[in-house]
């Protein structure tokens, strides 16, 4: 991957290994062998300004951990994250604060992630104060403008409301406003629509899409819902047990998935048409962290196409045409 002019974020071989805690006495034992859960195990991708990348996968695939590593909510075990051409993992002090201003995250649950004692104004203004930006008048203008951008308009009506006076959809817009008030370059959105009703979901999807294009954000959208991603993401990365299995343009992956796991994930999505007669997914069971330790491909134990080679050697990420990459011996 080369670093082109408008690449905002580049992630290379990112890893996060959580040590498995054992009892105190066992940790003193000479035979003690520290084991790890490899939540993120060698993830690489890059994302341009104005682009939305989807991270898809089952629970436990490491998609949320990847998001948290990018915004420095977790410290990576190894690997590299380059943000606007600069290595971000080693940043400290003032530089780290500067970085945090530019990379923001919004979370799944708009009900528990907001301070119920803060008014809308206070909540959206707080990041500006933390970063010591502007005087109170400028900040107010900034807050109003951001609220209107996220569709909470006229902003003046919302300024003195408390979160509990807002609906779920409005709360999620508030979360986006708080993230955008600092004018970030990169936005990590962790399933922000999964708690919303269908009639509001479409509105939020469109909002994220249009803000990404208009503000030239690099947006990373984390979800297991491929049907939502289809409307939002330019590219999708399909993750399994901490690794990316396939990455490429959304429509191409959905129409013609190359990796058997992508196929399984796509075929598991129910279709709201009684006449389709969808073939149900053929993948048994669920991901097991034990599969990370095996010699070959980590999807092999559940894979319908598994061969001898898959058991012995893990497949490398291979570049295919149309900007696609896939890690599978059979693809």
């Amino acid at each position, binding site marked *: 991957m080369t670093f082109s002019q408008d690449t905002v974020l580049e992630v290379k071989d990112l890893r996060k290994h959580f040590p498995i805690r054992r009892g105190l006495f066992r940790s003193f034992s000479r035979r003690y062998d520290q084991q790890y859960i490899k939540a993120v195990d060698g993830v690489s991708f890059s994302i341009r300004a104005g682009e939305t990348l989807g991270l898809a996968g*089952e*629970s436990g695939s490491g998609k949320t951990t990847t998001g948290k590593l990018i915004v420095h909510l977790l410290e990576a075990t190894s690997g590299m994250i380059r943000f606007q051409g600069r290595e971000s993992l080693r940043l400290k002090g003032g530089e780290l604060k500067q970085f945090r201003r530019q990379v923001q995250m919004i979370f799944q649950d708009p009900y528990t992630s907001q301070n119920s004692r803060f008014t809308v104004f206070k909540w959206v203004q707080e990041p500006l104060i933390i970063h010591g930006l502007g005087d109170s008048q400028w900040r107010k203008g900034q807050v109003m403008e951001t609220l209107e951008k996220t569709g909470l308009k006229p902003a003046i009506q919302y300024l003195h409301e408390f979160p509990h006076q807002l*609906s*779920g959809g409005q709360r999620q817009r508030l979360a986006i406003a708080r993230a955008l008030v600092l004018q970030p370059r990169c936005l990590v959105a962790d399933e922000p629509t999964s708690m919303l*009703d*269908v*009639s*509001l*979901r*479409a*509105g939020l*999807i*469109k909002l994220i899409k249009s803000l990404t294009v208009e503000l030239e954000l690099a947006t990373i959208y984390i979800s*297991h*819902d*491929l*049907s*939502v991603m*289809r*409307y939002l993401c330019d590219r999708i990365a399909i993750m399994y047990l901490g690794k990316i299995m396939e990455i490429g343009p959304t*429509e191409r992956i*959905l129409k013609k998935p190359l990796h058997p796991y992508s196929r*399984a*994930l*796509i*075929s*598991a*999505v*129910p*279709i*709201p*048409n*009684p*006449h*389709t007669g*969808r073939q*149900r*997914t053929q*993948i*048994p069971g*669920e991901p097991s962290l034990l599969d990370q330790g095996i010699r070959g491909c980590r999807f092999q134990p559940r894979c319908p196409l598994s061969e001898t080679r898959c058991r012995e050697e893990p497949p490398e990420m291979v570049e295919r045409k149309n900007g696609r990459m896939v890690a599978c011996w059979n693809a």
Partner: protein
Amino acid sequence: MEPLLDVYKIKIDYKTERGLVRAVDEVSFSIRSPQNLALVGESGCGKTTVAKGILHLLADNASISGGRITFQGQRIDNMRERDFDRLRWCQISVISQSAMNALNPVYTVGDQIVEAIQAHERMGKREAHSRVRELFQWVGLPPERVRAYPHEFSGGMKQRVIIAMSLALRPSLIIADEPTTALDVIMQDQILEKIVNIQRQSVSSMLMISHDISVVTEVCQHIVVMYAGKVLESCSIEEFYEHPCHPYSMGLQMAFPTLEGEAKRLISIPGFPPNLLEEISGCLFRDRCPFQRPICEQIAPPDVEVSPGHIAKCHFAHQADGFRLLSAREETWEANVA
């Protein structure tokens, strides 16, 4: 033939500090045997309250204030608790959304199911245990895991345990309240497949409560769309897909993302459901409806029977063909925002 479950003009009120809220207002539907019926709608539309009303599980401040519920020809809405307890599990069982968190952490899952069986049926311990093993096989869990504790299971497996438990006494009606909402797609698909297969074998009916149109399309035969406590449309799944007659149903369909076909434009229905504390005249959906006319404000729409078994609560249900074309356009819904 007599329906298995018949809900007729049921009304449920919540007493709150700010007055009475009618959460369910004259909701009617019936389930034959075997049939799967879906109750869909957004949060707060009253779909779960209906289920709780059927199951005698309403909160203390809620009560059924009208209508009747009949199960196998027997009134159950005014039944004494002692009598209703005899139907619970044996005849009517529940799979609820967060049920997987309701498992007792200090008992093995097998013991918990055995306890449920023995509470309702005279059965020896050994026999009950072998029933549990059989159930585990049905839902795709290894039978030896009956001795495991809930924390040893993943979320999807716990939900399977709950399904096994709800099937333990071969009920004729299963009430499933968002049974797969907390799970991701692959697990959801596996579990829905299990539910459908088991139902086919055991000839039971299901009332499925969901907000996910694609899930109910694949599992159910009939759909009831609720909004602000009322039924806006009730018809077969095929009718709902091909000829939705209520603008709200059309909106829901257009708002629902799908992997099928070409990527269509998603619409979002502007506005919010009405506040049920306020007295509202006319149609409850009118403020959000792109096709509203003066009559919608004055007169509450009647139930219009568009075709046999297909009912829509809209003054213009017979003109739905024209609405359907317009509802596919984004502008139609946006124009209404002002």
